[in-house]
């Protein structure tokens, strides 16, 4: 099914005492079902706001967003969000964190634990079910964040620079892991990043957006076979091409 997510003329303005601040301006794009779309753009260009609009965490000023034909009006379990800061509950174990979604959606404890265990295993954290977030490394905590988002079994995963604060090497590892998890259980993913390598490594398609107010500047279909290699000449060529494009269009 195509056009699973559809943004039509979406704008967002914040009004404050200091005036009207236009953050997102007339954005149009669609995402196919089970597509991994990367939104790539420089810092402070309104990427997070755009993601919040799709999640339904912020009201839209103008335009319309539909997911699976239904208009987005508020946040819901159909759209899971993974943040840059992992936002885990520090007083809950890994199991508690991952099973939180299914439990609060009314599932029995046994069932939600079974679902949680499946995703804990999938992200490679078997054995850490009883650990607390402060006992985990940054990369592990982010895996819990991914497992927790998956455990809600949302149709759409929205990921806001989830690996942004990890060091370069852990980041490579997590990118590999995300692709592995996604290939086993496909979801529609919108992944936001300001890292060009990460964008090319992950994406089926990249949308380039630029500074405030956020507008779509370009689009790249990434056809490199997976698993992708950072030193592959085609990878490097694409990297040069996109970063050149971004340089010129900002």
């Amino acid at each position, binding site marked *: 099914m195509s056009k699973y997510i559809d943004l039509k003329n979406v704008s967002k303005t914040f009004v404050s005492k200091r005036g009207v601040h236009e953050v997102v301006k007339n954005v149009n794009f669609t995402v196919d079902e089970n597509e991994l779309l990367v939104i790539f753009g420089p810092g402070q260009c309104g990427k997070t706001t755009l993601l919040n609009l799709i999640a339904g965490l912020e009201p839209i000023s103008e335009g319309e967003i539909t997911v699976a034909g239904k208009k987005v009006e508020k946040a819901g379990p159909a759209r899971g969000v993974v943040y840059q800061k992992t936002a885990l509950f520090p007083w809950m174990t890994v199991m508690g964190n991952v099973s939180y979604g299914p439990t609060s959606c009314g599932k029995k404890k046994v069932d939600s634990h079974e679902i949680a265990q499946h995703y804990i295993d999938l992200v490679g954290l078997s054995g850490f079910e009883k650990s607390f977030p402060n006992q985990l490394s940054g990369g592990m905590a982010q895996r819990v964040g991914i497992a927790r988002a998956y455990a809600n079994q949302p149709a759409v995963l929205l990921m806001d620079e989830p690996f942004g604060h990890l060091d*370069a*090497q852990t980041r490579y590892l997590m990118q590999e892991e995300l692709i592995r998890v996604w290939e086993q259980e496909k979801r529609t993913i919108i992944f936001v990043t300001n890292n*060009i*390598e990460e964008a090319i490594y992950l994406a089926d398609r990249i949308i380039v957006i630029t500074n405030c107010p956020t507008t779509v500047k370009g689009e790249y279909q990434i056809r490199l076979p997976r698993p992708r290699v950072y*030193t592959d*000449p085609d990878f490097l060529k694409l990297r*040069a091409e996109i970063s050149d494009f971004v340089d010129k269009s900002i």
Partner: protein
Amino acid sequence: MEQNQKQIKVTVRNMTKKFGDLLVLNDISFDVKKGEFLCVVGPTGCGKTTFLNCLTNLYQPTSGEILVDNVPVDLRKQNIAYIFQEYSTMPWLTVEENVGYGLKIKQVPKAEAQQAINEVLEVVGLEKYRKFYPSELSASMQQRVVIARAFATKPDLLLMDEPYGQLDIDLRFRLEDELLKLWKANGTTVIFITHNIEEAVYLSEEILVLTNKPTSIKQKINNLLLQPRNVVSPEFAALRNEVTELIKWW
């Protein structure tokens, strides 16, 4: 000149550093030749920064010996510059005053200092911003101020701790080229720590690969690729892959 090439600038003998019971650096020995560009890479958290801090005596090594020009390292006497990962500009000084700070401390005559400042400002492309304060500059411009300040003193030994870690790719490439220009012009000995393998292969004459904690030297690689280097060439990719394999722990 030929003679200079062979002189040893830095000698590290059996450098060991413990924090309490935690052994961080384990018996590290190596030499850096005068005028050499050495890059240090290693897995995350392997103690790269501790390594550099011991080298400058910011931390006292637990045991072992570090010599610069055959005498124990002394920051007050020797002409050493250190560029940290964080942008360490002084916010109350203008760009020009920041860049001239080291020269002022070294009591370089005013006219001579001014000439040195003008030269480095031109190299880093900040001539027009000499009267600006750091808060009026972008992050990458601030980092250029720090680089200019280090180079203004024409250090014999330049230590850099992931100076370009936070920069986007285009700017990183530009600043790497600027660094190479300055290095060649001044015959400076450079020790450059990075987590970015591509950067290490692009810049270095020698690459020191460290192991995980307790840190020791895994391998020293002589980088014979001709400059200017092309990141897309197969030889470049091969070396980059080789080094990546050496530090990969997953």
